[in-house]
């Protein structure tokens, strides 16, 4: 563990400021609370918002898991995990079931999260209305007045142009029947996991300096139309490594003739599935020799 830093890098006053903002975020589900974002020792866009939230939450008893697009072994995940090992000396894990704090970039783990776990999302652009209305003063008023019709117009334009809602990630949701919220660029496959989740979900945007949250057991509804109901992605194939059919699959091009295969994006889930398969095989071997 590095010395010369306060526990978990941030100074105590910064942590207190983030902590106070987080309580407001939980009390007003889906509302973006402005906070005094601090400089972190890495560039914006690499999860500075999520890291500040994690730094404000983490304690010596925590098990930290960090995933990047579902994977524990990609650059972003590895370096953030190493960062907190260095500055907080906390235990880290890749197992979803073991973790108490899960910082995530753009995925929710396949294994359902439990009560008591906290998910910390890294958010690039927290404002769901930003691509429609670039002025902060305007979007703030729109949230104040619950003026969200334009969000449905955007989804309708998709239907008019493509015949279906073409938004596949950062799919807008309405939280607790009040605020329209960007669930960060998770695939819309993960949107149903936000609804009535037993775990607290916290979102941190470092560059935009906004925090928001979904408390446990909160209604989260993906925006849709009666005749075009919300539908998560589905795949024809299964995972080439573990055979899972119900997980979010990454498409991998394997040659220059356009052949492709699919693979779980959640590496921990995929590994558990593979291990289970192997152990089942081992268990079955002696029984084959049994008479009768």
């Amino acid at each position: 563990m590095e010395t010369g830093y306060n526990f978990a890098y941030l100074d105590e006053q910064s942590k207190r400021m983030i902590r106070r903002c987080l309580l407001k975020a939980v009390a007003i589900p889906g509302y973006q609370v402005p906070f005094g974002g601090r400089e972190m020792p890495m560039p914006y866009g690499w999860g500075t918002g999520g890291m500040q939230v994690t730094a404000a939450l983490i304690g010596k008893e925590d098990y930290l898991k960090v995933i990047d697009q579902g994977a524990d072994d990609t650059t972003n995940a590895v370096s953030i995990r190493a960062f907190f090992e260095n500055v907080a000396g906390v235990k880290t894990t890749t197992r979803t079931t073991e973790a108490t704090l899960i910082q995530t970039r753009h995925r929710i783990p396949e294994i359902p999260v439990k009560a008591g776990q906290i998910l910390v999302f890294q958010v690039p652009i927290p404002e769901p209305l930003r691509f429609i209305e670039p002025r902060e003063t305007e979007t703030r008023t729109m949230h104040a007045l619950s003026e969200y019709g334009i969000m449905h117009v955007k989804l309708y334009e998709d239907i008019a142009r493509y015949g279906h809602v073409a938004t596949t990630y950062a799919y807008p949701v309405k939280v607790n029947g009040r605020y329209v919220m960007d669930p960060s660029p998770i695939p819309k496959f993960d949107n149903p996991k936000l609804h009535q989740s037993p775990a607290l979900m916290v979102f941190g945007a470092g560059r935009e300096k906004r925090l928001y949250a979904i408390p446990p057991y909160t209604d989260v509804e993906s925006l849709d139309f009666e005749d075009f109901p919300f539908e998560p992605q589905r795949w024809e194939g299964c995972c080439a490594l573990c055979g899972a059919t119900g997980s979010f699959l990454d498409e991998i091009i394997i040659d220059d003739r356009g052949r492709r295969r699919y693979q779980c994006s959640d590496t921990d889930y995929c590994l558990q599935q593979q291990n289970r398969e192997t152990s089942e095989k081992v268990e079955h071997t002696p029984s084959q020799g049994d008479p009768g």
Partner: protein
Amino acid sequence: MAFAAEGLYQSGFENPVEQSQQCYRYLLEGFSRPGRWASLGAINTPTSISSSLWTILLTLCDVETPVWLSPAMIAADDPERHPLTTAIKFYTASPIVEIASQAQFALLTSADADLLKGLAIGTPEYPDRSATCLVDLSLGTAANTGAMLHLACSGPGFADIRTVSLPGLSSAWLPAMQENRQLFPLGLDFIFCRQEEFLVIPRSTSLEAVKCTSQ
């Protein structure tokens, strides 16, 4: 000064970094799953306030958070010891404000239901610019009368409707808190404190009166 010094100078965290982190996780859990009593453990308090309230003050308050004390809270000061305002300034450096609407944290007793109207509820654009009420249930006129408020709570954080009992609260709190719920997303968040325990009712919680028979 004539006051005994030990009361004031022995009321801080022994290990501020760890203890405030631990207390905060309980608080966050309290906001996430409201309506449950949780214990923050024992700590020396500078005055007769509940130790959970003092722990929360040490955890959340600093030079950026104006604190306001209700007259009943000030009246509850022990004449033998330092006033609570002195202790708050000494430990957190929080400015003590005279005007209730300027407070980010309002310290109230169980007798202060009618003072909620004077506190900041935020603005439609910034509903987060509102006060958090720290209510000490063991202080105030209703504290030892055996009064008990039973509430059926539901909303974000509640898997099912949950009945919450708040000892020391008069029935005057129910309409005040229901009006507060009507303001959502504006409004006040409540942290009720009793000795080492606390319980959170955020603005998002819907409240109904529960008629209690016997017991």
